[in-house]
């Protein structure tokens, strides 16, 4: 019961979606609409589960005073602050438990949730990802080395695209006459993107889609069961 019923449910849900694709009329269309509505609600709870699991992991580290537990405490406090201010005053025009919080807005300029989002979450998130610029510069210097014919192709294409996608590249080859426009860097970069790049990416799409179709079938037919977890 613990394994077979879930397998049957997955099969039925999958079958219903597939049948309704080919017979998009009642009763299948209505059933699918209901299933989609349920899906969104269950998916909402699954995100709650993910967040609860994160908290549980942090709680374990704090309670056992694991290495760097203080930072995990900061994580839990930040989480609690965001949740509490969001629940109390809401965000943007959405009211919270204490309404719109006009008093606090007159003091802070905006709702506490929006204030924290703009002044803490945005800079943290944007800066975290901007670090990658430094790492890619370092990688370009240390690892982007010509060794074989294939790496030559990779290098040539990268150089044309890096130059062609800038104003500097446009300026560099703007002297080339209109009859030979193809050799201007931006046009050449567009050509690479539109033809050889598209061909390769399309090959990846086609091949990956075959894999996805195969694994989807395995899930619906109950051959692939790893998502159910252990045997208990």
């Amino acid at each position, binding site marked *: 019961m613990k394994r077979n019923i879930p397998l049957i449910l997955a099969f039925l849900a999958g079958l219903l*979606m597939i049948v309704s694709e080919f017979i998009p009329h009642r009763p299948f269309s209505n059933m699918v609409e209901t299933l989609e509505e349920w899906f969104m609600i*269950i998916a909402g709870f699954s*995100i709650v589960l993910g967040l609860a699991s994160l908290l549980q992991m942090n709680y374990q580290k704090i309670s056992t005073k694991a290495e760097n537990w203080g930072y995990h405490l900061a994580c839990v406090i930040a989480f609690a602050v965001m949740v509490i201010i969001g629940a109390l005053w809401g965000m943007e025009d959405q009211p919270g438990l204490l309404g719109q919080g006009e008093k606090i807005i*007159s003091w802070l300029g905006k709702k506490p949730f929006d204030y924290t989002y703009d002044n803490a979450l945005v800079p943290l998130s944007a800066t975290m990802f901007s670090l990658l*610029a430094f790492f890619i510069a370092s990688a370009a210097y240390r690892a982007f080395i010509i060794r074989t014919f294939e790496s030559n*192709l990779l290098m040539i294409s990268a150089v044309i695209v890096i130059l062609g996608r800038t104003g500097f590249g446009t300026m560099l080859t703007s002297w080339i006459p209109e009859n030979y426009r193809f050799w201007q860097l931006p046009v050449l970069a567009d050509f690479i993107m539109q033809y050889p790049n598209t061909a390769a990416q399309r*090959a990846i799409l086609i091949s990956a889609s075959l894999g996805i179709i195969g694994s989807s079938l395995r899930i619906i037919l109950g051959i692939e069961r790893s998502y159910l977890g252990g045997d208990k």
Partner: protein
Amino acid sequence: MPDIMNTVGIWLGAFFTFAIFSFLYKDNPFYKLAEQIFVGLSAGYGLIYIIYAALMPNLFTKLATDFGGNLILLIPFALGIMMITRMVPKIQWLSRYPLSIVIGTSAAISLLRFLKSDLIAQVAATMINPFATKVPSEIVGNLMLIIGTICGVYFFYFSKKQEGIAKIPSKIGVYFLMVSFGATFGYTVMARISLLIGRLEFLLKDWLHIIK
């Protein structure tokens, strides 16, 4: 007061920006603190949005305003609660029921959509007449598109060992993939630099008011 708080907010943003950038020198307490605050705030943000934007309007408000008319919503509600039982080892098997519905539905939608959009449509889009245009570069490009796609797919065919003459299309496929990876590297450089520009602009414009 809001003006002062706005300035405080910008200084807070600058502090977090520097705290993250400090990692470039070496790992340090400021970076670790900023990193964990980032995780905590993101999770808190996600929870509030899930409740306000998804669970409240699509479930709780409907049940609160017209319970009798929305009785059927108790089923996904119950399934949602069952999903959370994954946290309790003794009854975590209950989460398999909602999980199987989510996985079964997603698998079927993926199967249908990828079949149509990524397999059939992409194969069809490759069936073009390369000589339909008179522009030489487009003819060459169209030929590259056809040959590159076929050889690329051939390269990903792992069921049989590619040897001798059968290796040639695979090799051509690799060449196309290399050109594409080069282009992707170029675009990745572009993306990462853009993000850095955004942060430096924040420091120069909003924090230091050096540029307008």
